[in-house]
Every structure is written in structure tokens, then in C-alpha cells.
């Protein structure tokens, strides 16, 4: 009896913990606006192929620094966007999707264009 009750409690705790609320931002594109977003700026911090996603920072014309989240490191590298290719201070334009939170200057970036070259880090996305 006691054993069955405790098993029930455990099952309930497990079920609750594993069923993440659907409204939560999801890794991937769920935390980003559906709207296409374009931005130009000067490279502030060059491409870093570290961590779960490659990153870089650019400074827009208004002086605000944006965090660019690229594809995972291996995919970003396959797209030709390796560390050190685009020098700091170069002007780039990017295409992607802004963070849903307007106070966060972050763009999940699909393409980076520099010096006539386009690095399409998410080739399957338009």
C-alpha cells in the first residue's frame, strides 16, 4: 500500500518535471522573431567557433553592439566562416532573426556578407 502510494508520487513528480510548459522559449528559433531582420555594422569581436553556437559581435551605425548567434561551430566552419577570416573593424551586413525580447540586442544569424562574400551558415533556411 505504502509502496504503491510512493510509486504514484514519484510518477507524478516525474511526469510534471518532464512536461515542460509549451510556451517556454525553445532552443533553436522559438526564442526569435519570425520576421526577417537585416543589420549592417562594424565587426567588434570576430567570429568565435566556441561553445554550443559560434558567435560574433558587430557595432551598428547608432553605436549599439549586437550579439550575433551563428550556427553550431562545425556548421559555421563548413560555411567557410572560420575564426579570423573577417577582420575586426570590417563592415559586414547580416540577415537573421532578432531575439523576441526587444531589450536584448541579439540576432540568430543565418547569413553574413562581407567584402562581396556571403557566408550562409544556415543554408537550409531562406
Amino acid at each position, binding site marked *: 500500500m*505504502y*509502496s504503491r502510494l*510512493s*510509486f504514484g*508520487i*514519484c510518477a507524478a*513528480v*516525474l511526469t510534471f*518535471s518532464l512536461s*515542460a510548459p509549451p510556451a*517556454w*522559449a*525553445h*532552443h533553436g528559433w522559438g*526564442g526569435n522573431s519570425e520576421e526577417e531582420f537585416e543589420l549592417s555594422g562594424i565587426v567588434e569581436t570576430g567570429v*568565435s*567557433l*566556441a*561553445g*554550443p553556437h559560434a558567435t560574433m559581435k558587430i557595432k551598428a551605425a547608432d553605436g549599439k553592439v549586437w550579439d550575433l548567434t551563428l550556427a*553550431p*561551430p*562545425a556548421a*559555421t*566552419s563548413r560555411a567557410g566562416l572560420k575564426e579570423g577570416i573577417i577582420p575586426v573593424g570590417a563592415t559586414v551586413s547580416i540577415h537573421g532573426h532578432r531575439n523576441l525580447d526587444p531589450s536584448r540586442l541579439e540576432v540568430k544569424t543565418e547569413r553574413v556578407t562581407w567584402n562581396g562574400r556571403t557566408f550562409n551558415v544556415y543554408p537550409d533556411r531562406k
Partner: protein
Amino acid sequence: MVWLQGSALGHAMRESGVWTYGVVNLVHILGVAALFGALLVLDLRLLGVWRNISLAAISEPTVPIATIGFLIAAASGVCLLATKATEYVGNPFLYIKFPAIALGLLNVAALNSLAAWRQRKLRDLSAHEQSKLAVIGGISLVSWLTAITAGRMIAYW
């Protein structure tokens, strides 16, 4: 966090190839799987499931697997954190995860201090002792489930 990111470990994580993070992440998941898989079995037994299997017998495989799993998860976890430690400052799930881990470890210390646990291989336990162990098992499940849930959610913040 700044120190951790600037440490030799942080540099190694960032500068040793595009697959490093993914592989260390895999090791972390394997560690968590070993830890949680083993403690799920042990905690359910402490809560009173599978009474026909003695606590002494069930603790034989589960305690070392959970311990090794924890050590693997902790070591790989520090590496993951060191990659971009400063990025996680302000991530609320981090402030849930680490206290939950601390609670889980304190709970292990409490278990080890119980005479009932230390003498599980020597004698039968009284009903009162078994209910004390059940409380420990419940706290353990809640704290580790919280730690794992918050840990997973760090990436989605």
C-alpha cells in the same frame, strides 16, 4: 566566472576544435544519465518500491554508478561552463541548478550519517528507520530532478 572563462581550461575549450563542445556535452549527458539512472532506482527503493530486493543488494550497483556519474558530470560541466562562463551570469536557471545540486549533496551526507543506512548490510531496519530513509529518497529525487530540469533549461533562456 570571468576567472573561469579566462582560465587555461576556458582557453582549451574554445581553441581545440569545432567538435570539442559537442563531445564534452555528450560526456556530460552520459554522466548525468549514469547518475540519474542509478539514483532513480535507489531512491525508489528507499521510498518503498521493490521491498523484495534488500536495500543492501540494490545499493551495491547503484551507489558506485551514481557516484561515478556525478564525478563525470561535474568535471565535464565545469568545462562547458568555462567555455563562455560570463554568458551565464544572470541566467536564472543557473541559480536554481546549483543550489539544487548542493541540496542533493547535503542529502547524500545526511544519508551517510544515518545509522540505518550504514548498517543496512548488517541487520533488518525498523519501520521508523525505513520511513527516515524514504524521506531521504524523496528529497534526493526532487533535488536531482530540479537540478537536471534547470540545467537543461539554461540553454533555452
